[in-house]
């Protein structure tokens, strides 16, 4: 375990505004901690939707360990702002968009989860099949915007409007990315023996 910490441990950094920092200073995180109802509402959401958020983060990053960090970070941040988030129509949409931003942005900071994972590392490996590893690998090979649009559409269930908002673009552009991405991905998956592109002499 000591090696784990040395290899991946990130020192706690001083708080800096990140891409998903909207509302960071809004609420005291411990505010809802004593409240039983808030505890169980949060636990219900977390237990029911953690897998979806992880699936989205893994498809966006192609790195399972990092995807776990991202999913846990997003839920940690949700808990820290739970009093304001649980009043929304769809708290999960907030969590997904935070996780998507963490997965997409270059300067992301996983301040909370990096430490959490080392205390609660899952013992059992996920039985992910070769098909699914291939799907993630092929998504990684598409242009980034197409991958993001596809993942947010197929895995995160976001509407075209929400995707446009998350990716900071127009609805029409998202539709175009989705259309072209769907087509490109289907072609890649239909041709299992395609040699690696881009590096051929």
């Amino acid at each position: 375990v000591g090696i784990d910490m040395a290899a991946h441990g990130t020192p706690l950094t001083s708080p800096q505004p990140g891409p998903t920092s909207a509302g960071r200073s809004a609420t005291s995180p411990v505010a809802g901690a004593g409240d039983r109802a808030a505890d169980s509402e949060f636990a219900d959401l977390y237990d029911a939707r953690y897998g979806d958020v992880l699936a989205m983060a893994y498809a966006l990053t192609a790195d399972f360990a990092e995807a776990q960090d991202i999913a846990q970070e997003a839920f940690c941040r949700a808990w820290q702002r739970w009093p304001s988030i649980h009043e929304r129509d769809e708290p999960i949409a907030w969590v997904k968009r935070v996780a998507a931003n963490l997965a997409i942005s270059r300067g992301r900071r996983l301040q909370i989860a990096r430490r959490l994972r080392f205390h609660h590392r899952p013992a059992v490996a996920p039985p992910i099949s070769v098909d699914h590893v291939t799907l993630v690998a092929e998504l990684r090979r598409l242009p980034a915007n197409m991958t993001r649009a596809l993942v947010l559409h197929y895995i995160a269930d976001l509407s075209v409007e929400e995707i446009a908002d998350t990716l900071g673009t127009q609805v029409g552009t998202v539709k175009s990315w989705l259309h072209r991405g769907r087509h490109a991905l289907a072609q890649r998956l239909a041709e299992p023996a395609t040699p690696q592109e881009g590096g051929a002499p």
Partner: protein
Amino acid sequence: VNHAPQPRRPPHPPNFDDDQLTTLFNGYRRAINAAALRPSAAALRGHANRHTRIRRIHRVTAVAAAALALAATITALTIHPHTTTTIPLASPSASPQIDISHSRPTTASSDPSKSQPSQGSPAQSRTCITADLMITLQNPTSSGPQEQTTLTLVNVSSGPCHLSGYPGLRLSTAGQPAMTTTVRRHGGPPQTVTLQPGGIASVLLTWNKYGQSGATCTPAPANLDVTPPGQTTAQTIPWLPTPAGSVCQGAISEDPIQTG
């Protein structure tokens, strides 16, 4: 660069349409959901709360530390002009580019020069630790009483790491009776396999599923504990269902870790 006109692909590949894409995504989502082990909600909440408290303390101590460091620097410059004071700064963690585009197991032979799990030169990487690896079992194949499957180890960490030798194996039942595992190791001399992020290594496992009587053996193993070479922590993965998963006398043989 090849300037020759490429043959146009049909707009919809005959064997992979949009419905299948939806099915694949849904299957992927279900698989990750089924496998999504996580800290308990209470642990996560506790951690988030602790982190907030730490952050508050850091904010206060950072100001105090900056003031002290400044004072120390001034003192040092005043008293010992050649002394420098280094103020440790927390730096953001590196986010290396991750490319698992070559990790596709089904096309491992398509371009050997680019296959990512490469042999040799472990100098630039470290030994894979248990947590670096996602370990899964492939579907078994049988010939007569003999059953065979591949244990797949995917590097899910963000940097390269290497493996050499044989993983430790231990079969266990869900409850009683306990079972003993006898592992026979054979095959050629172990080679060092370097795995890029997303790179895949495999281990061939062979066992007998039928005993003297021609029936499957009991107890049926429920799980397999896999310990990567040189590690002390095991990953527990579900073992195969009977009949393929019947392992007589708990005897299983393994080849060394190889690429792909």
